[in-house]
């Protein structure tokens, strides 16, 4: 029900979701070695969980900044701090937030509707892994072309491309479980009741950044 009402309020939501997922596939997915068993597949995200976690960070810049600061505290690579500072210094946490519902074990939203246009237009495919039965998400050659076209033509698309690239950089080499663990470290995330929106943590993360910079 929630979904349908969201779609009534925002008649073009499926296209927006599709665009975001397209860029996540394009910029976060791992390259598919060619020749692949899947025709024309160029990128792949190997589980729905992983896709969901990536989607969550794209949709919640505050939580992403928090994860970036975590990464910075892990490896002390100044780029993570720089990224986090850029996000927190902007209005992204407020204006770019597309709140997500928590369901059982984390941020989860039925992703099929957003994926449907990509599949229908022949930009992506979902195929279960023959052994693990996990659903895998493939970006097809045509999808990559459309993503490039969108990035060139649509100012609205550029942000998603950039953001997905950053999330991809953060997630590289991490499994869905690892990403879930990272996200669970945030109490607003962990403590959100089932079926409720995961709250904004912009204030806490900005404070964390201020404390971090104050202590430097």
């Amino acid at each position, binding site marked *: 029900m929630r979904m349908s009402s969201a779609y009534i309020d925002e*008649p073009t939501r499926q296209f927006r979701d*599709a665009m975001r997922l397209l860029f996540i596939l394009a910029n976060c997915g791992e390259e598919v070695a060619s020749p692949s068993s899947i025709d024309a597949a160029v990128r792949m995200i190997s589980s729905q969980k992983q896709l969901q976690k990536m989607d969550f960070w794209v949709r919640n810049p505050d939580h992403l900044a928090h994860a970036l600061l975590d990464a910075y505290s892990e490896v002390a690579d100044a780029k993570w701090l720089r990224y986090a500072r850029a996000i927190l210094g902007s209005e992204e946490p407020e204006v770019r937030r597309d709140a997500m519902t928590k369901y059982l074990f984390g941020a989860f939203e039925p992703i099929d509707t957003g994926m449907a246009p990509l599949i229908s237009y022949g*930009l992506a495919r979902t195929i279960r892994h023959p052994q693990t039965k996990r659903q895998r998400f493939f970006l097809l050659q045509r999808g990559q072309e459309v993503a490039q076209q969108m990035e060139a033509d649509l100012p609205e698309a550029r942000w998603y491309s950039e953001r997905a690239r950053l999330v991809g950089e953060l997630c590289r080499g991490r499994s869905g479980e690892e990403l879930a663990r990272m996200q669970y470290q945030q109490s607003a995330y962990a403590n959100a009741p089932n079926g409720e929106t995961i709250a904004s943590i912009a204030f806490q993360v900005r404070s964390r950044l201020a404390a971090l910079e104050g202590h430097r």
Partner: protein
Amino acid sequence: MNALQEPDSAAPGPPIAPFREAVADKAKTTNAMVDLILADVGVHEETATRPADHLTIRRLVFSGTKRASGYEDGPFTFEWKDLGPGLFAALTDGVNQVGKSTILEVLLWAMRGHPRGLKPEVRSWIDTVEVEFTIGADRYCIDFTDFDSIPRGKLVMVAPGPARILRSFEGEEAFETAMGDLMMTRFSLQPIPNVSHTGDETSQYYHAWSAYAASMFIEGSHPAILGDVTVGALWWRMLHLFVGMPYAATHMALRNAVTLEQAQRDGEASARSRQDAFSAEIRRNEAEKKKLENELKALGAPNLNLEEIDALTMEHARLSRDGIQRQSEAAEAERDAQALKAEKDEARAALRRLQEGAASKRIFAGLRPVCCPRCAEVIPESRAIGEDQSGRCAVCDRNTLHDDQDALEDSMAAASARVDALSSAETLARNTATKRHEEAKALERRREETATKLRKADEQASALRTRREIEGKILRIAGALEQLKTLAKASRPATGAGEERLRVLKAAEVIAEARMKSASADLFKDLEGEVVAVAKRFGFRGLETIAIRGNGINLMVSGVPSGYSKQTAGQRLRLRIALVIAMMRMADRSGYGNHPGVLFIDSPGSEELSDDDLVAMVNEIRQVASETPNVQIFLASARGDLLRSAVLTKNIKQPADSGAMF
């Protein structure tokens, strides 16, 4: 009435020289000098004695409200009327604390202007007192209220002639003055001067009506035979004035003046060494005064305006209040702005989503569907052609021509308008917050200014206090200086004029004493005879003679010489009562004498007398009182069982049914 009797016309012996001439002669000086010196000490030639009047209480009324008395609390009125000469008694049967003594105390209180032994809690019950009394042929009424222990009332001369207020008074002192002035004048009594020596200081003070009146109240035995003051032989001086002794007052005043003069001149012996001490002390005080005056100058004039302080205090309170109000308004506007911003951000996000959706749709819509997203079945070419021609979706067959582009644009316009509106609202709230903040800051600045002014005013107030203190010190030092200078002057070696003054006073005292003594020899002989007679009737068995002298009272009891102070309590009580009765009997006989003739005797049976002696004495008192028309005696006793028979029934006041006198 005795007052109307003619005094004996046959004066004994040849007339003596006028007092002033006798003194001038003795002191070897002029009449004028004697006049000057005697006038200075307030002594005048006695030109007349005065026929005896006496005081008689006619009616007593007092009322009020009893609280926690143990007997029927509440309003009460006590009246004792048809009083006159003779013995009156307030009697109870073995019960105390019912008010019999209070009746006597209230009477004395009214007669002398301040209470003697009236218990404060009982006094607090009493709201009004009224006493009618006569002195000779004149009738008076004293009435007063006593709320919060402040007597307010008036002394009225009721008759003869039209009733007129002699004195209105408020406060104990004024009350005492009112009664004292009347009584002292009516009984020709004079303030009894006394000299007090404290350290080097010699000063004079006076016993007045209060002391005389105290001699009317007899409560058991007392070390003094008359009154309740033992020092300074007051009883002796009072006795002289009570019996109307010629030259008694003159002698008393002169003796006092001599003592004072002597004391001052004694001091002159050491005057020279004291001069130096005085000079040093004067210099020290002058230096101190100078120092304080400089301090005062340094302080400057305080500029204290109480109205200004009030205004500043109120202004400060108002500014604080307004400041807090503005701050809370600012905070509220701030909260509004925050909420509006959150709402605006959400609206901006909503607008963004629509814009992103619309933009991405433009790209996606240009793509040709290749498969069913549900089953991945390839869309046949015919479907794609059909969509181009009919507008029906190649995948779901929905009529895409019905897509309302306008509706999308409308919702984007609405979202955009919402962003603008919220943005304006937020700006407005922020401006309000800023404005309120600034107002609060301005108010805070003004409050701080006012507080500073208040602090300054407070400093002024404290400077004023300091100034007052210094001024007070300067005043005290100036007073001390004045006194020191006077003393320094006074302690200069004696002058001839001082010698003459002392000589004249001493001569006058000797003459006055001689004249008093020659007159008093007979008077005292009469008095002593009366005292012995009356005391014996009261049950002082074996009393043969009494010699009343200034240095003591000597008795001869059953052939053995004794003194007043050696007597038992019972004998002393008899003598105390007998002395007053004797005076009144003498006054009645001779027509001269100044005792008011009223006696209050409280609880004579306490421990002084056996039952039989008590009854006998009271019987005699009644008898003597009836024989002596100018005597009025009030008796209070708890031995009603014994004494009822000794007092005329109509003169007895007994407790009411409640058990209390009032």
